[in-house]
Every structure is written in C-alpha cells, then in structure tokens.
C-alpha cells in the first residue's frame, strides 16, 4: 500500500483523538482519546520507519530503525502517563464521585 494510506489513516485516528479531547466531558474518555492520538503517532512512525528502510536500505545500516525505537519510548511514556493519569482520575473520583471535566470551570472562580 502507498505510504499515503498510512499517513491518512493515522492522521484520521489522530484527528478523531483531538476531536474527542476537545468535545468530550468524561475525563477517562478524554484520556483514551489522548492515547488514541499517541497510537496514531506510533502507527505513523512505524510506517515511516519502513518507508525509510525501503529507500535507504542500500545506503545505511539499520535504516529506519530509529523510528521503531521511538515507538518503544512512546509506549513507555504512555504507560507512565497512564499510571499517573489514572491515579489522578481515581484521586479525583474519590473526592468528587465524578469524572466529569465540567467541574474544571470551578477553578476559574
């Protein structure tokens, strides 16, 4: 498949994630949308990695491998964010019994 398909796919996923973040009210769903964004990036990176491998394999050793390496790091960071984010959401839930982000407006006053 041409690389453009991959770009379009991951951009679509990414945009879905962005729209979710901007429109949803539930903190967990927002959070999942963010994860979706990250995974769209992962997909794109792997696709690009393969693309650069195909074009540069004769010139460079380990061509395109750094893209996959990056994916690993994104996964790790995403995991760390999950850990922290879920803790925060749980903490908030125990205090407010809600995961609705509308309350965030309260801070303004």
């Amino acid at each position, binding site marked *: 498949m*041409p690389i453009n398909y991959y770009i379009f796919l991951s951009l679509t996923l990414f945009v879905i994630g962005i729209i979710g973040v901007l429109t949803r009210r539930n903190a967990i769903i927002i959070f999942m949308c963010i994860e979706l964004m990250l995974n769209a990036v992962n997909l794109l990176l792997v696709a690009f990695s393969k693309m650069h491998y195909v074009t540069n394999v004769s010139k460079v050793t380990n061509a395109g491998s750094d893209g996959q390496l990056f994916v690993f790091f994104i996964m790790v960071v995403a995991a760390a964010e999950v850990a922290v984010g879920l803790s925060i959401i749980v903490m908030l839930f125990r205090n407010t019994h809600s995961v609705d982000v509308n309350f965030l407006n309260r801070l303004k006053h």
Partner: protein
Amino acid sequence: MFHLLQTNVTQTVSDASSAGSYFPVGIQLLFVVGMIGFLMVVTHLLGPKRHTSDKLQTFSSGIESHGDARQPMAIKYFLVAILFVLFDVEVIFFYPYAVNFRGLGWSGFWAVLMFVAFFLCGFIYIIKKGALDWED
C-alpha cells in the same frame, strides 16, 4: 509510492516478516466472530422467553440488593492495575533484548543489568511503600 503491504498474498502469507502473514489470522477472526455470533443468535431464538420482574432482578443469593453495585472499591485493585501497566512495559523492553542478546554481547548485558537495577529499584520501592500489602 511505496507498496508496504505487498499484496501478492501467497508469497507474503508464508513470509513471516510481512504484514501479509496476518491474513490467516484475519480469516480466523472472521470465522470465530461469525461462529460465536451465530451461536448467540441461535440461543437467543431457541430459549423460552418468560420474563418476570423477580427474574430480572440482580441475583445475590436471595438477598435483596441495595443501591448501585458500581461504587468505589478498594484502592488496592487500582494500584495493581497501575503497577501492572508500568511493569508490563518494562517487561516488554526485555523482549527485544532477549531475542538479540547474543549479538549485543556483554556490553548489552551490562546495559540490561542497569535497566534491571532500575526495575528493581522501583520494585523494591513499591514493596517498601506497602503497595503490595493486602492485609491492612
């Protein structure tokens, strides 16, 4: 344009490093979903339908259930889930190493040893913090 997923399936299904090798998995998924969906529908059609209000109550050993079941529960479970996420990702890091470690030799081993040391640091920390103590 780069044809990443070469669609000459016969060739790629047997080529393990190609995305084509997932094709049979897809077939299996379709098969399994179809089968299970079919069974679900069949059982839905076959069984008798005599609903009474008592029957549709949640069942808890004959005791009347109170309130919503989905209330906050022990934080320990969340903690385990969160720790799992962290440690699982660390474990994932070992996989590429395990496959390639002969090539990486001793230098790779020392690097992984350092990684394991950090892993253990975190591990000891959570144990010391009592995150894994279930009797409290």
